[in-house]
């Protein structure tokens, strides 16, 4: 994807508070009929992107839903943007959720609303209608994902990849402080997947948004760790060999209800754990 539109100028993301914790999981456990997560602890600092990896059913999506307060843990504490969501009432969660963006696995677009109404959903909640300013912001967000021409279409008229990009536009339109991506490339072809990952990298490098990203595609995870978004070229480019540039991307691998690895891409490649070696191969 070489012709990404210029970065959206308005609105600006909240300045990344480097070093401060955006999301903290402390000894979080949850199960339904059987345990899914046991004693899981990790933290995501501002400006960092954490890629959650693991087999199906290891609780990756559950971690995103827990962070968003959509599900409560059985035990442990979850702190998001300074608020302890694990003990908050549902009614009190809504204000916090407006500071977080989520891209759902199946996009979860409102199928009876147009693309514009979907992307502007949060903004319409505040104003009650699509004003000229909102329309302009929707177009900017759609230009970011290269879908400006689709604003008056319905989700059913879009392809899977386009729906995923609209979902990203919807999540970023208010420039949230934290973004949660649930398998944004799941079920997509490699070219479209690369487009989506480029958008995620662009959001990471242009706005320094803290993110949790769930994926099954190791290739996506390593692309994120080995590329950065060049604002001058307006595209994602690979890191040069020996580059000291920090792409603020770390990996978390889940297995048997627990985190078995947390670290950077080079650390992951050096890991000697037999399961991880097999997982990587």
């Amino acid at each position: 994807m070489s012709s990404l539109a210029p970065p959206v100028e308005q609105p600006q993301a909240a300045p990344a508070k480097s070093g401060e914790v955006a999301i903290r999981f402390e000894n979080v456990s949850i199960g339904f009929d059987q345990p899914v997560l046991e004693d899981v602890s990790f933290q995501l600092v501002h400006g960092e992107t954490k890629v959650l990896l693991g087999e199906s059913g290891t609780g990756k999506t559950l971690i995103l839903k827990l962070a968003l307060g959509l599900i409560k843990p059985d035990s442990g504490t979850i702190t998001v943007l300074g608020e302890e969501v694990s003990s908050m009432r549902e009614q009190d969660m809504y204000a916090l959720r407006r500071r977080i963006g989520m891209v759902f696995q199946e996009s979860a677009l409102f199928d009876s609303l147009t693309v514009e109404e979907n992307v502007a959903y949060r903004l319409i909640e505040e104003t009650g209608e699509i004003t000229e300013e909102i329309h302009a912001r929707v177009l900017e967000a759609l230009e970011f994902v290269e879908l400006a021409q689709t604003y008056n279409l319905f989700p059913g008229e879009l392809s899977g990849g386009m729906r995923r990009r609209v979902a990203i536009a919807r999540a970023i339109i208010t420039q949230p402080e934290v973004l949660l991506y649930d398998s944004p490339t799941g079920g997509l072809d490699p070219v479209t997947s690369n487009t989506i990952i480029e958008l995620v990298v662009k959001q990471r490098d242009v706005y320094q948004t803290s993110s949790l990203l769930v994926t099954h595609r190791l290739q996506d995870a390593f692309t994120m760790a080995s590329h950065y978004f060049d604002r001058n070229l307006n595209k994602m480019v690979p890191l040069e060999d020996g580059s000291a540039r920090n792409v603020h991307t770390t990996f978390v691998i889940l297995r048997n209800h627990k985190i078995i690895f947390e670290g950077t891409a080079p650390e992951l490649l050096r890991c000697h754990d037999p399961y991880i070696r097999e997982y990587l191969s």
Partner: protein
Amino acid sequence: MAIAYFTDIAKQNVVAVQEYSLLAGRSLSNLFGRPRYYAETLLQADSVGVGSLPIVVLIGLFTGAVLALQTSSTLQQFGSLSLTGKLVALSMVRELGPVLTGILVAGRNSSGMASELGSMKVTEQIDAMRAMGVDPTKKLVTPRVIASLVMMFFLSIISDLVGLVGGFFVSYLLLGLDPNQYWTTAYQALRFGDVFMGLSKPIVFGFIIATIGCFYGLSAKGGTQGVGRATTQAVVAASVLIVVTDFFITKLLIGIFEY
């Protein structure tokens, strides 16, 4: 083993009643908070009220007509055919108008609400709404509850009226009753307690229709099959609840107005 099975079922039912009560309570407490979704409420009022109008008119008309037809032979035995208007008026206003309208609207709208919200639930649109900081009970449930309450009230009045007209057609055209006599006995039969009963029931039924439809929709799980199940359960539960509640409201109001 069997005890554990029945205990689980009992627990599930208790939890369902608890969740329904919470949802019903929230749908009302939302009336006192912001934001308020006026456009959504009007849209629902159009769907529930205007959308149900033709079927309510049709059923009301023929119910009144058949009521007059069925009772005429009995009344004739006692030489009281002139009381047909009174009988139709009392039956329609106190009982048949609200209950039949309630069951019809439940069949049409509880199912619609359950399937719409159920589809949204299984495609994660409800979660997406929550994730974007929008309370689904405020955005989806409360507008449907208000719309159903208000529209059931007016639909019942319309049903009562066309029921009386249906009774009149039969009385005048088939039984040869004097029109003046029919309308006079119908009008004079109704006391404050009858009208109060006839107007209070649809409000309760409207609340049941909307909250049950929304509850089953929001509880749907298991894909399209789950949505279908939720839709069926919503119609059955709403219809049964309407009939059961009707008994208790009638008993209460009979006690209050000392019939």
